[in-house]
């Protein structure tokens, strides 16, 4: 237990260092963007048909939220705020704290991503086991091929295909939006049902995106465990097939925790495209919004949060690993 905590602490410190590096990187990145939020706001309003004088006044307010301090001062200010868990205030949201904006968007990314991950994990792992056990048959081959293909297909191609097939062609699933607008949000059946049906396409996209990774990793892992002597030994001791399958699954699943971390990162990265296509008001969309409006603090915050999610996923994966693997746990 002491070793576990110690390891956890080390991981967290390494994670914090990474957060600092990423925060600095983000800061530099974001401040090298051309254009300023005031101009953008002005042109946005003009294109909406707002009269120039009103547009100019409004743009001036937005521009008022931009900092004109020297970069280095801004950087230390930013780091200081970060230490207090403060991500600054948004420009395009006229001074609303970035943390609040992100907090309202995060569930729409985190939950579909997690649900997708859980679904793909179950299907992918099960598929991987089948593909490994039946690897010399046609079905096993096809299953493996499906995994490779899914792992290869670009996320937006998948999203578009799903949208086209299920929405445009067969018209069985809604596309865009998070729920049916006519329903009142809350703990009521129709609304929850609506949220779920609206989540089907994005969640399926997330799920299909990582399905291949799980399947391929699980397959190769199961194949290698199947070749492990202790499985044959268990068979020769007359251990029942179900127990043997549990032995295989538990041993084979270990390497998947590295994939888990990668998947989370990949999915959060992919959320930009998927949320754009399915019009989900999550972090990816927020990032695009902030880039379009040159909302530096928001952009930095969203980017940082996505990165922190990846770092956390990495830490979590390693911890899970050490919980499951006694060789690490008792080391």
């Amino acid at each position: 237990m002491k070793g576990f905590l110690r390891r956890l602490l080390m991981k967290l410190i390494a994670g914090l260092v990474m957060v600092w590096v990423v925060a600095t990187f983000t800061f530099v990145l974001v401040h090298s963007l051309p254009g300023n939020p005031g101009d953008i706001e002005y042109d946005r309003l003009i294109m909406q048909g707002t009269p120039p004088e009103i547009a100019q006044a409004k743009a001036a307010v937005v521009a008022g939220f931009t900092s004109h301090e020297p970069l280095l001062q801004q950087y230390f200010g930013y780091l200081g705020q970060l230490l207090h868990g403060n991500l600054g205030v948004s420009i395009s949201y006229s001074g609303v704290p970035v943390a609040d904006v992100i907090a309202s968007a995060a569930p729409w990314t985190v939950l579909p991503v997690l649900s997708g991950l859980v679904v793909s994990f179950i299907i992918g792992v099960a598929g991987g086991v089948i593909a490994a056990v039946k690897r010399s048959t046609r079905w096993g081959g096809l299953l493996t091929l499906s995994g490779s293909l899914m792992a290869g297909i670009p996320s937006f191609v998948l999203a578009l295909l799903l949208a086209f097939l299920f929405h445009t062609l067969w018209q069985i699933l809604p596309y865009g939006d998070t729920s049916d607008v006519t329903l009142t949000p809350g703990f009521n059946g129709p609304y929850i049902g609506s949220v779920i049906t609206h989540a089907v396409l994005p969640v399926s996209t997330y799920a299909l995106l990582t399905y291949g990774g799980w399947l391929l990793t699980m397959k190769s892992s199961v194949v290698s465990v199947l070749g492990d002597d202790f499985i044959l030994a268990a068979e020769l001791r007359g251990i029942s097939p179900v127990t043997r399958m549990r032995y295989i699954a538990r041993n084979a699943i270990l390497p998947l925790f590295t994939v888990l971390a990668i998947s989370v990162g990949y999915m959060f990265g992919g959320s930009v495209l998927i949320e754009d296509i399915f019009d989900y008001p999550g972090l990816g969309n927020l990032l695009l919004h902030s880039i379009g409006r040159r909302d530096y603090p928001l952009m930095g915050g969203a980017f940082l949060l996505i990165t922190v999610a990846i770092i956390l996923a990495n830490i979590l994966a390693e911890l899970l690993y050490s919980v499951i693997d006694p060789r690490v746990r008792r080391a």
Partner: protein
Amino acid sequence: MSTLAAARARRSPWRVTRRVLLRKPGRVIGLAIIVFFTLMAIAGPMLYPGQLAVDPDNIYASPSGAHWLGTDFAGSDVLQEVIVGARYVLLTAAISALVTAALGTTIGLVAGYHRGFTDSSLMRVTDFVLTIPGFPLLVVLSTIWNFGRPLEMGLVLGVTGWGGVARAVRSQTLSLRERGFLEAARGLGLSNTHIIVRELLPNIAPYVAMNLLLSVIGFIGAEVALFFLGVVPFTSSNWGVMLNEAVFAGGAINSPQALSYLLAPLVCILLLTLGIVLFLDAIDELFNPRLRERS
């Protein structure tokens, strides 16, 4: 001495390749698809030099004899556009794959071979590259630098995408490092360059090749996605631009008229992915002499 082993030793690499390829029909299909698109990328722009003809009176025409895949928003032929657009997509993917291979292999090899401080500092950099979410980074970068041209796009994708290869190469190098033949080579006094280039590299080549083909798929996805999202300005039409136009300007999701314009590039990407995936199987066996011999 087994006569069988001797017979195998006499086989030329070409015959081995052919044998490996022909073992599963999928591999041949995969190779055919890759060759097909490569030819398209090389010859496409020559087939249709200059700008594609526009025809304001024939916008979003349905597939017909004159236009096999219909026309786009300006009345240009979709088939021609797909063919011309292939070069950009493949050239960029090839460049980024090269950059990734060079960077990833070098960094992974050096880190794994030298260990110690070199290793840990290189691996911190690699961790960083792997942690930064790739696609959002590209989106942000695209507003700073208009990397629309193939070389630039390839460089950007390659420079942000080498982490996975470096890590794979490093772990492979670390495990090879413990193998007797490397200790022997060092014991014989062979130079580090010799050891890395002659002894390590050939053993790592299969991993690099596999990773590379996989990353090519990823790169195609990423570049097309950037155009699809419309964050990268383009100098000429390509598959991503077509998708963007089809969805956001052509209403292909809502109107069947622009459908062929949407599906043409989509199907191309799918086919190419399928081709590479099918072919990967053969690469694995080709580069791995033991796998080849076993069956």
